[in-house]
Every structure is written in C-alpha cells, then in structure tokens.
C-alpha cells in the first residue's frame, strides 16, 4: 500500500465503442457483442453477492480503507451520526459542495443545512442555462441499453489528492461503488464536478452507503459502468436549468500553497442492514442506477423538491420515515420492467402500502370504495336510473364529496343485465 487511496472516475467515452464497432466492420466473421442480458446477469450476480455478504463486506472494506495512512474512516449508524461526523470534520468551514448522489442529497442534505451548513449540488452549476426540451418520460427516445455496453470507461484515476489549487470548502460526495478487497472507490461522472471537488476541496468526505460495497475492484468498476448504462435516459429527466440555487466554487480564492488536505471515508448504514431481516430485503439489490425513473408516469411531478427522485427512493424514504405515504404510486409495474436487477418494486410498494394502512388506518371516505363489486351490482340493479344520475352534475358533486371521485372523471356506465345473467339465460 503506497498510502494514496485510489479513486477512479468513469465517464462517457467513445474509444471503446469505436474500437468494438471497427472490429465488427473489419472482421469477416461477426463476433457476437456482449448483449444487454449478459450485462444484467453479471450485474445481478454482483448485487446478490453484496447483499448476501453485507456485514462481512462492510468489515472488510473498513479494514482495507483504513490501511491507507492518509485516510480517516468514520462509521455512521444513521443520518444524525453522519451529520455529527461531518460537523466535526468541517470545523469552521460551513460551505459544502455535494454531487447529485441520491444518498447524500436525500438522506444527509437537510440535516447538514439544519446544523448551519450551506449545501450546494455542484452538478447543476456545470452547464449553462438551457431550454429543457425533454420534459417528461414519454419524450425519451427509448434507446436500448444494448448499445451502451462500452460507453463508460475509467478516464481518470485520482491517485494523488495533491492539487494545484485548494479551496476552503468541504466536498461531501456519494460514491457509486467501492471495493471491499482493496478499498478502491469509483464514481460515474457526466460533467466534471466530481473530479473538480476531489481535486480542489480542502476536505473531502466520501460517503459510502453500505449497499455500495462490492467484492473487488473489477466488480465495482462494472457496477459503476452499469449505473451509466441503465441510468442514462433517467439522467436526462434530471437536468434542470440552473434555477436551482447555485454557488460558484470557482470564484473561491485558492488557499496558500502546501495546504494539508483531508480525505475521509464515511461508511453510512442508515437503515440498510435492518433490511436484511425484513420483507423489503430485495431493496439491497439496488445499485442506484435509477432506471426505474425512466418509465414512471408520476415521476416528474416529484422532481424539483430538492431531492433526487426515483420510485425506489420514494419507497426508501417512506421506509425511513421522511416520506409520509406511498399513495402516489399508480401500481402500473413499469419500474419492474426497467430494473436491470429485477427488483419487484411493485410488490415491495404494495407491502409498504399495507403497512401504512395498518399503521395509520383508513378514512371512512376511502373505505367507501372497499367493495367496488357491491357498488357495481347496486348500479346495475338501479339500471338506467344510475346511468342517468352519474351524468347529472348535482349527483357527481355528491359522489365527489362522499367518495372522492372527481366530478368530471369519466365513469363507466352500468349495464342493466350483467354478463353472468346473460350467460346463465343462454344455457337454457
């Protein structure tokens, strides 16, 4: 161990794809490209190993990373412990730059702000103002992940955290994957905010949620690649013109030469190991690619509240207690279709929803729709009168007040003779 923690950054590159396509053009025999199913299978193996060996991997990672003399290691059971640690590290400095990490943004940011930090997602400062054309999921081109297998490669190995210009702020960045075997850290970067933070911040805190720990560096690099491959289109939905409050870190004056920089690795649990024994255990398979966002019809309505949104994080924040309900979920199942590791999110959402009702009960208004078949039978019995009634605004207003059905919603019409009655008559 030569003392420097190896941090690798993966970015979108053209080289490998070029090489692979050139190979196909020039070889007389067509070699089969590794297809997306093979990528998913390999990914699934990595994730299953991680979740099956969670406690031992955490210990192994902690040991490996502690071997680097320049690195300080902290362990936080929950968000408040993490905030406490960051506070201690920060000292006087109250300016924090974070990347667009789901863990850091959703689980730590508000806590940091409430303890006096000014927190900015530097990611959004990276690009100039623009007119967002792709507003919602149906405008995504639906490009197959197939072509992206070679598109993300390691472009920077930050083995030296000796930078030319050090600025007086803290960088709290969430990782994509880490290797338990040798402590290597991996990031995926589309812009350049992560490498800038790693090179410039006086103190760097690498937040490692325990489900980001994988066996070795090859698995970690591969998993990070998959974040890029499967999360590509969802990322387009995140891009917001710089309406988000910004800070120009570039404008900070550089500190005098010979600054002592600090690198911390903060291992964060925050409810993850508790999943091991519960019904929501499959959530540990998640690699954080956010492919589930890609087709979620309610997705973009949650963007812009300062969090990084995905159906998974919607459920996760419910389990953590920071999101009061799961009722916005429409149960369409599209997130399941997108997930590269086949997490049955719809079923997990159902289970969480039932738990929600068991915990909070249900209003009488809600219970009115508990037996929809009964209502249908009554409607059929009332026949044409029922159909006449649901066309009248006065009755629709009544139904809206009592049962919560919008007065303008198209309701189905009741048929005077149910199918089964017709069928039984037919038999005779």
């Amino acid at each position, binding site marked *: 161990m030569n003392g420097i923690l190896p941090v690798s950054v993966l970015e979108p590159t053209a080289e490998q794809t070029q090489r692979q396509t050139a190979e196909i053009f020039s070889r007389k025999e067509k070699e089969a490209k590794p297809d997306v199913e093979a990528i998913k299978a390999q990914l699934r193996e990595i994730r299953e190993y991680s979740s099956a060996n969670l406690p031992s991997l955490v210990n192994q990672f902690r040991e490996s990373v502690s071997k680097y003399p320049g690195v300080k290691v902290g362990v936080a059971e929950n968000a408040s412990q993490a905030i406490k640690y960051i506070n201690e590290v920060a000292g006087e400095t109250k300016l924090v730059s974070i990347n667009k990490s789901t863990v850091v943004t959703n689980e730590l940011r508000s806590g940091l702000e409430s303890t006096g930090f000014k927190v900015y997602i530097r990611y959004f400062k990276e690009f100039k103002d623009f007119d967002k054309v792709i507003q*919602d*999921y*149906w405008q995504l081109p639906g490009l197959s992940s197939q072509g992206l297998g070679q598109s993300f490669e390691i472009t920077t190995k930050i083995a030296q955290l000796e930078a030319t210009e050090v600025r007086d702020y803290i960088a709290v960045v969430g990782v994509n994957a880490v290797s338990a075997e040798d402590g290597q850290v991996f990031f995926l970067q589309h812009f350049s905010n992560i490498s800038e933070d790693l090179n410039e911040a006086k103190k760097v805190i690498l937040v490692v949620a325990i489900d980001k720990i994988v066996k070795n560096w090859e698995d970690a690099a591969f998993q990070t690649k998959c974040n890029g491959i499967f999360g590509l289109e969802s990322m387009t939905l995140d891009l917001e013109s710089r309406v988000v409050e910004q800070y120009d870190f570039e404008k900070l004056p550089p500190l005098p030469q010979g600054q002592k920089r600090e690198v911390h690795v903060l291992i964060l649990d925050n409810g993850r190991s508790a999943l091991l024994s519960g019904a929501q255990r499959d959530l540990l398979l998640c690699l954080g690619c956010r492919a589930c966002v890609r*087709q979620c*019809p*309610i997705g973009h*309505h949650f963007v812009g509240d300062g969090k990084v949104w995905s159906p998974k994080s919607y459920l996760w924040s419910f389990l953590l207690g920071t999101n009061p309900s799961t009722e*916005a979920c*429409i*149960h*369409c*199942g*599209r997130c*399941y*279709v997108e997930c590269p590791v086949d997490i049955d999110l*719809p*079923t997990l959402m*159902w289970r969480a*929803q*039932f738990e929600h*009702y068991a915990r909070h009960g*249900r209003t009488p208004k*809600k*219970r009115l*729709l*508990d*037996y*929809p*078949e009964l209502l*249908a*039978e009554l*409607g*059929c019995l009332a026949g044409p009168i029922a159909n006449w009634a649901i066309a009248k605004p006065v009755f629709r207003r009544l139904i*809206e007040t009592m049962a*919560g*059905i*919008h007065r*303008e*919603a*198209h*309701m*189905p*019409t*009741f*048929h005077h*003779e*149910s*199918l*089964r009655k*017709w*069928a039984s008559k037919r038999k005779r």
Partner: protein
Amino acid sequence: MGEQKKKIVYYAGCFANYYDPEIGKSFIEVMERNGFEVIIPDEKCCGMPMLANGNVKGAAKNVKFNLKSLTRAASPGYDILTTCPSCNLMLRSECVTFFDSEEARFVSEHIYDASEYLNKLNRKGELNTKFGRMDLKVFYHAPCHMKVQDLTYESVNLLKLIPGLSVVKVNTACCGMGGSYGMKKVNYDLAIEIAGKVWEEVKTAQPDKGVTECGGCKLQIEAGTGINVVHPQMLLREAYGSY
C-alpha cells in the same frame, strides 16, 4: 361420432360483467368460433381494486372464493382465460405473492390473457383465421398491466390477421387512470397530465377507433379524445361475423 369440444374457463372480471358485457359476449363468440365451449364459473371481483384501496381482508376473501371456483372448474385440465389485464395480473402474480396456496399456483399456471392465448393457437396453426375484411384504422393503447406481464404486442399481432385492418399507432405510454386512481379528486389533475401524451398521439394518428384491453384505459382515452374505444375481442367477433 360426436366431436369432443375443447373447453376453456372464462374469468370475466367486473368490467366485462357489469359495465361492458359486450366484451364478454364477443370473447365467448370468438372462442366458440374456434371450437371451444366456454365455461363461466361463479366468480367475485378479483380483488385488485380492493388491494389497491387497502382492503386486504376483503381481497383475501374474494381471492379464496375465486381460486376455489376456478380450480374446480379447470380441474379436468382446462385453461383459464381473462379479457382484463388487471384481473390477469392479479390471478397470475399477486395471488401467489400475497395469498399463496396450492390453488393460487394452479390458477397462476393455467391462466392466460385472451389475445395471448389466441396467438398461441395461431402459432400451432389451430386458430380460425376466417376473418372478413374490415377497412379500419385503429389506435392500439397497451395497458401498463399488459406491459408488466410482457404481453405488450399480443393484441397488435392478433389484429394484424384481420384483412384491411391497420394499426396506425401503438402507444405504450401510461394513460394515468391506474384503475380508479385517476378518477379520484386528489389524483385527477395529475392523471389528466399523464393522459395528455396519449390524447395527443390519438389526435395525430386520427384513427377510426381506439383499441385496448383495459376498461380504465378505455375510459381515460375516451375522456380526452371523444373517439370510440373497443376491446380487441369485439373487433375479432366483428371480423368473424363478416366473413
């Protein structure tokens, strides 16, 4: 020597039972024209809307009843067919997930969506393809519950067998109805926004009719476009009839 008629069991679901029996009548005729006798056992609501509403106990009761009735009816080895994608999903997956039993698994293994089943017959060369010509431009909307069961294109492939019928657009975006989700006051505005994409595509495609298997999707599309939306089984019946 009398020909032994093949039999299938039909789980109609509430939409076909109470709101649009023509779906069921069309389906029965289509199956009869393929030499099947259709058995309609006693049934209750599949329980999906009750589950979505949080009425787990009510859903469990219905599921118990349905599984018993369906296993009894299908026990000689008949397949179980549905015309509603949500009922299909409920009986195929959710029953096993939440109310697992031997009967749940039996039903799960024997259940098919109607279009899926007819395509299967076609692949075996057993489908009655005596379809009359129907000069019609249709817009097919794939319900989310078909997508999640990997049945997105079943009806499209089936409808392509009807001469003269052209599927001018296949839409796979969510319509926002989500059962009764989109009808509720709290969700209405959001549902309308989600439906907007589908409505726009209908307006661009200018079809003669809309086609979809899901009753909720049908209501949502009709709400925003005014076109008539039918179940694919109805088109098949019409095509058989005009041969």
